[in-house]
Structures are given as C-alpha cells and as structure tokens.
C-alpha cells in the first residue's frame, strides 16, 4: 500500500498534495477533526479536470474549512467532496480511500492502487 506521509507530518486542519505512481493527478490529503480525507486533485469544473492549489499544498480556502479550486473559486466540502459554491455546483471530487496504519503512516487503500 503506497505510503503518502506520516500523520505527524500533517497538522490538524492542514492539507498536502502527493504524487502517486500511476495516477495522473496528485492526491490531496486533508486532516480535519482527527480524521484524514483523501481526494483527487482534480477540479470537476472542466472536462479532464484541473489541479486546484494556487501554490504547492495551498488547497484550502482562507478559513481553512473547504477545499478550494483556485482557478475560479469553487469550494468543496472536506468530508463529502461535494461542491458547495462556484462553478462546479452539483459536482463532486473523487474520493481516494486512505488508511492510517499502526505506525501512524497515511497510506492509500488497495483499491485505489489498481485504478
């Protein structure tokens, strides 16, 4: 199972993007409320998807309570991936299932590695 980072490297409320072998886009990991959420860095506004940060790892809006696409300001719910404001209303992000192992490493779940 691909290891993305240690949970300790990801502060509560923080987000980071990771390149994953075999995946065309990065995987965004957001730590919030003691849980980690994985999403493809793939804004659904345009066909083909676009990466969303305005600089390395800058995936959240100013308040830190939504994932934001910084091309045109779409906001996504961190827990459900649903777009709640902006150009992708009605669309959602693609979830990347994650696990945190006993040693505290954030890993992709098997299923994702086959896609």
């Amino acid at each position, binding site marked *: 199972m691909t290891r993305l980072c240690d949970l300790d490297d990801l502060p509560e409320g923080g987000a980071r993007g990771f390149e994953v072998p075999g995946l065309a886009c990065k995987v965004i990991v957001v730590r919030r409320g003691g849980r980690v959420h994985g999403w493809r860095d793939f804004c659904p506004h345009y066909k083909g998807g*676009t*990466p*969303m*940060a*305005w*600089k*390395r790892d*800058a995936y959240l*809006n*100013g*308040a830190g309570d939504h994932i*934001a*696409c*910084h*091309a*045109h*300001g779409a*906001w996504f719910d961190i827990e459900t991936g649903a777009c709640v*404001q*902006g*150009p992708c*209303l009605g669309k959602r992000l693609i979830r990347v299932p994650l696990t945190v192992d006993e040693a505290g490493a954030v890993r992709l779940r098997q299923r994702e590695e086959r896609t």
Partner: protein
Amino acid sequence: MQIIGPDSLVFGVDDVPACHEFLTAYGLDAHDYTPEKGGHFLSLDGTGLEIRRRDDPSLPPALKTGNMLRMQVLGVVDQAAMEAVAAELGKDRQVLRLADGSLRTQDDQGFELSFRVTTRRPLDLPAEKVNAPGDFGRKPNQIGVWQDMPTKPRTLSHVVLFVPDIEPAVAFYRDRLGFRITDTFTGTGPFLRPQANADHHTHFFIRTPPYMQGCEHLAFHMGGPTELMLAGSKMIKAGYESFWGPGRHKFGSNWFWYFKSPLGCNVEFDADMDTHDDDWVPREAPMGAEAAQAFLFQHRDKWAPSGGPKPGH
C-alpha cells in the same frame, strides 16, 4: 464614450496575506498595505488591484455566487467623458457621485461599476525588441535576455467575466458605454474594446449559469514575450501553480500564461496584444482548443543536453 478600460479591480478576499504573497511574487507593488486591512497592488502605470477582506464594510455588496470580485473601476479620459457616462447611465439607473469625484453604479447583471478620470501614468518604456534578418530591432551590443532582467507588469490589461445573461450584458457595454466588439467566440461571448483604448480587448464575457457569475481571470500586460516567459518561470520556481500556458492566443494575438490565485480567479501575464481601430471587421469562431490558441507549451525544469563523452574520449 471615452472609456479607457479598468484602472482598478476591487476584491473582497478570504485571505489577505495570501493575496499579498501571490501578487507581490507576480510583480505588483503593494501600497498602503496592512495584513488586517489589505491594500493596493499596482503595476508600473498605477493601474492594479485593490484587495480587502471579504467582510470589509467599505466594499460594495458581494455577488451572490461567492466570487470575490467586488467592483470594476473604469478609467475615462477626462471630466467631459465622466459627464457623458453619468448622463447616459442616469437615464435608467441610479448613478451616485462620490466625494472623490468618481461615479458609482451597477451594470444590468449586478456587477458594481465605478468610473473615474483615469489616474494611469503614461509609460515611456521600450517594448521588447526582436532581431531578424531584414529587420534588426535591437542596436548592436544590446542583449535580448538576462536572467534577472526586470519583469514588472506594466498595466492592467483586461478582465474576463462569467456572465449569466449575456445578451443584455453585451448590449449594455456596446450600446450604452460604446464598447466595440472585436471578435466573438460563438456561443461563448465577445471580446470588447472601449473607444479610448486600441487594445484588442479590455473585457471578454463568457456565458455561464447564474451560480458562476464573477471574475474568470484578469491580466496585466508585460513588456514582451520574453518578460512573460521569465516572469512565469519565476512563479513556477517559487512554487506557484500554472493553470494554462505559456502559449499564444489567436484572437488578440497575445501571449498568455495563467496562474491560479487566492483571489479565487486566475491571474494572467499577457504580452504583445493586437491593437485595433474602427476599421476592424470582427471575426467569429467556435470556442475550442484549436481556436483558443496558436500554440501551447508547458513549463519544465531547466535542462541541457550534457553527459556525452568526456573530452579526450
């Protein structure tokens, strides 16, 4: 109507320091800036952006969509032009005269507009010069590029809007404010040029559903393609993220490089845009990858062919 184009675009943002970081890296100079209140971010001729907190009570009302653009400040040539705008728009809407001499109103879509006698300074700067057999733009010994040559945005070039009700929006700018349509992407929208500006466009409208209304991107003019390439490369090196480019648009001929930003819209470098006069016959093409650009590249890290046989082998 002797309108020149946007002197300033006003934003109400979620993260003022992030905008400061981004816009200064982009090459604008911060004026009267504090992290609490925001400030102005200006290009070489004094045009630029005003960045405030989203909840700043001095800002005009926000769009319902959450888009952070709060107002366009359009520069006009003189006081007579101001009076002409006031008389025309006063026919069917409220036009406020503010203490600073500016006019304040709204277009038919609810985009806030301000008009003022332009404060932009005339620029006395050479454009990028090109050498070619038959036409040498640079003098002997004048070099074309060096690593740390200045790459400052010169002037606010254009703003692109997501517009829900596009026909009345175009009619307002064309028939009431006297903008000329230079070219049109069929089904998407037109490029617009105000009468006192020869640039191919200061505005471009994109037809969208109402929940998207807002600013799609804004752009500043650079001194030429080399400055644009260098400025964009510096952004990439500093960790900022490209959205589209570098490349060269067909309509307008301008070179482009778009970056995502904490303003909730793309911020573009542009260079070498066509200019037009009223003899120009507008073109029309269906929007698509083919029509949108003559060519498109993607940045890669510096590289050199090396590692061949060692000298003497």
